[in-house]
């Protein structure tokens, strides 16, 4: 395997994740209860034997920085290599925010230049998948490619969300279309690129394209030797609320496509020390993921329960994702919701209530399937009734609600 530097692009804002990315970058969004999305890419790196990793940040990086720390959880706290968090900085010539992933790489050219590596593996920090990068890197070396692109087949209905590539029988890529309206191929670029280091340096210094998929790849396909590596396993881009919700729910089936219990491919994360999940005498738990430190005395079905969540007696949680340390008081009913961290739902409140499925008025394209979202640290007063497709923004206090304590479907609460 060639000497490899992995660069994880984790700076994006991802507005399509609504309240989940209001206070954190997409890479730091919790997933499957105890993980964060970036854990999958980071763990793939170390499980593939890549111990030289840079994480490129820009949008609201605090929780991501804190999560990664010195990289202890991934054995990336090393003297040689290890993990480095690379954030935008000012230079004597001024400085600017990075306008896209190619721009982000360009801003870190000096880091790439100093790194003793043959290949730069560019990874997205916001995908859920388990992938051994070694076969791809071997292919890259064998074919002596300038660029190797990882590709995954997608359904023809989804091609408009991805960069679609056309692969020739010999494995070379002959066409790259970024988010095409209509296309014949169903091979999507996974946003995983292996670049020969000298080649990457050259294209970044000579051109000024800001985005790899949109600006660089379509042009480079014509000029250079680009090879495709087809990946067969589970892969999900959880860049929208709906995709995020579905990827979480997919873990609850009998044998999920994404096996988190595989001892040979452990997904590492920075776990807080919490005691075992406590399940009380009145509890009913069916078809869930439960994390250490949660305390359940209500009824929980088909839901993902993160560490430290408290579900009081008589409360009902169905088809929902509840993030860390959220408290659901007695008798509250939560149906098809995503509750961010530290939310408090007062006694008897109904969240995700009724049959009215009016899409969210502010973002009807994003929230129209009945999911209600509650932002970090929000307080829902006791007895409130909250409809579907509702967004309660982070840190909304219980006083924000009017006297009726009713929020009809499709509304947004908080500025």
């Amino acid at each position, binding site marked *: 395997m060639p000497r490899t530097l992995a660069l994880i692009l984790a700076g994006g804002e991802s507005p399509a994740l609504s309240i989940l990315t209001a206070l954190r970058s997409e890479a730091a969004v919790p997933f499957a209860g105890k993980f964060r999305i970036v854990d999958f890419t980071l763990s793939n790196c170390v499980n593939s034997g890549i111990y030289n990793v840079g994480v490129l940040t820009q949008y609201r990086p605090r929780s991501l920085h804190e999560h990664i720390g010195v990289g202890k959880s991934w054995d990336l706290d090393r003297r040689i290599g290890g993990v480095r968090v690379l954030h935008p900085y000012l230079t004597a010539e001024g400085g600017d925010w990075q306008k896209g992933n190619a721009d982000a790489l360009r801003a870190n050219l000096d880091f790439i230049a100093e790194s003793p590596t043959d290949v730069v593996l560019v990874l997205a920090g916001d995908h859920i998948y388990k992938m051994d990068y070694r076969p791809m890197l071997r292919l890259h070396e064998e074919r002596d490619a300038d660029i190797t692109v990882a590709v995954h087949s997608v359904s023809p209905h989804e091609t408009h969300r991805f960069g679609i590539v056309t692969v020739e029988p010999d494995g070379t890529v002959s066409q790259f279309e970024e988010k095409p309206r209509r296309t014949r191929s169903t091979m999507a670029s996974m946003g995983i690129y292996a670049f020969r280091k000298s080649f990457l340096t050259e294209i970044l210094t000579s051109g000024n394209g800001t985005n790899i998929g949109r600006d660089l790849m379509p042009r480079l396909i014509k000029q250079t030797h680009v090879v495709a590596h087809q990946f067969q396993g589970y892969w999900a881009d959880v860049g929208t609320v709906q995709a995020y919700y579905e990827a979480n729910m997919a873990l609850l089936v009998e044998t999920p496509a994404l096996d988190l219990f595989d001892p040979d491919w452990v997904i590492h994360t920075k776990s807080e020390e919490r005691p*075992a999940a406590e399940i009380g005498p009145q509890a009913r738990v069916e*078809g869930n993921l439960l994390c250490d430190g949660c305390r359940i005395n209500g009824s929980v079905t088909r839901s993902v329960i993160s560490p430290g969540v408290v579900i009081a007696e008589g409360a009902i949680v169905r088809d929902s994702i509840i993030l860390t340390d959220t408290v659901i008081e007695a008798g509250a009913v939560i149906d098809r919701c995503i509750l961010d961290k530290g939310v408090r739902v007062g006694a008897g409140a109904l969240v995700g209530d009724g049959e009215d499925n009016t899409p969210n008025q502010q973002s009807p394209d994003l929230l129209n399937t009945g999911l209600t979202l509650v932002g970090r640290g929000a307080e829902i007063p006791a007895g409130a009734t909250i409809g579907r497709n509702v967004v309660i923004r982070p840190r909304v206090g219980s006083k924000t609600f009017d006297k009726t304590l009713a929020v009809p479907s499709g509304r947004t609460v908080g500025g």
Partner: protein
Amino acid sequence: MLYDIKRKLWYSFCRPGSLLNGVLIASALEVPVRVVAMILAGGEGTRLTVLSEKRAKPSVPFAGKFRIIDFPLSNCVNSGIFDVAVLTQYRPHSMNAHIGNGKPWDLDRSNGGVQLLQPYQGRRDESWYKGTADAVYQNINYIRERRADLVVLLSGDHIYKMDYAAMIEFHQRNRAELTVAVMNVALDETDRFGILTVDEHDRVVEFTEKPKNRDKGTLANMGIYVFNAEALVARLSGGGEGNPRIDFGKHIIPSMIGDGNVFAYPFEGYWVDVGTIQSYWETSMDLLDPSNTLNLSDPNWVIHTRSEERAPAKIGPQARVTRSMVCNGCVVRGTVDRSVLSPGVYISPGAIVRDSVVMNDTWIGPGAVLDKVIVDKNVIVGAGVRLGYGDDMSPNRQQGDKLTTGITVVGKGAHIPAGITIGRNVLINADRDEDHFPKDEIKSGETV
């Protein structure tokens, strides 16, 4: 340099009989003292039968993901003591792996941190530890090298949360040579403990090991001590003929009480010595009682442990789980009531687990029924096995003093073939496989 002088000065202030007014004592206390903790973790714990056959008692798993020693270790770091020695002797392998470099407790430090002290061969009388005091005596250089002012001596097999800093303050305030932590026990239980009799200033006047009479008071020795390092070193070095120094409870503590500068620090809170199968099981069941006072989720007093990275527990659609603790990495497809499941336990569909403790990575087959059982790690319980079956409560014939209350214990790595019925008070030793189960039924009280 200045620091050393200040420390010496402070030390002379704290001598008993120093002429000192209260204001000065308070300011003298501002000077930091060097505290080391020594955790006695060498015991075999025979009363825990197969649970401590392949590991020392302090490394027996507890509350699913913890080991018993996590409690004193976490108490140390939560009390601000980052100089900790763990004295091991009996089967230390699993504990050494658990403690490692002390990372989970932030004890992987360049100055201080955790150190494992095992018996070693020397030119004088160094050898296997003959008792608790002998173990500390053989490692007296640790106390000297760390230039300790105070030694906090702890036992590695108690479950409790305690702020040693408060006890140290009590020790300093009384200018004691030795402070013993005590707790009130019921009068009819005093014959199980070492009982301390104190005067009105909390000074210990008498120490009676397991008193027959009920007139010694109800303050029980918890096995938690704060020593002035100098006094401890002097007492241990001065031992010999006619003045033995083998055991703290038998030799050292009584003789220091005789010198008259020993105080009793009253502790209120949850404390339990999980030394027997019965108390281990009861303590585990206590955790499941909503009114238990050992709060494991206190963010201000986290119990740290070495956790493997495991996925969240998966509860199947047909599962029923009540009154239980379930750790990450478990898969529950059957029924679990009033039980503690460690990480990685698999409960098959149709299996029923009641009033039991099931340790890491044990597999419970379809339709198996467990009632009042403690199952060690990596056990395979075949389909349809009935474990802890029937009303026959005959005590275990080989270990009649340890297994009498109906608890069946299965040792690490045992493989119980499908369809077998096993009674109560049964002991199944570690690593038994199909060949050791010639019959389809094992009656209560038997040993495999």
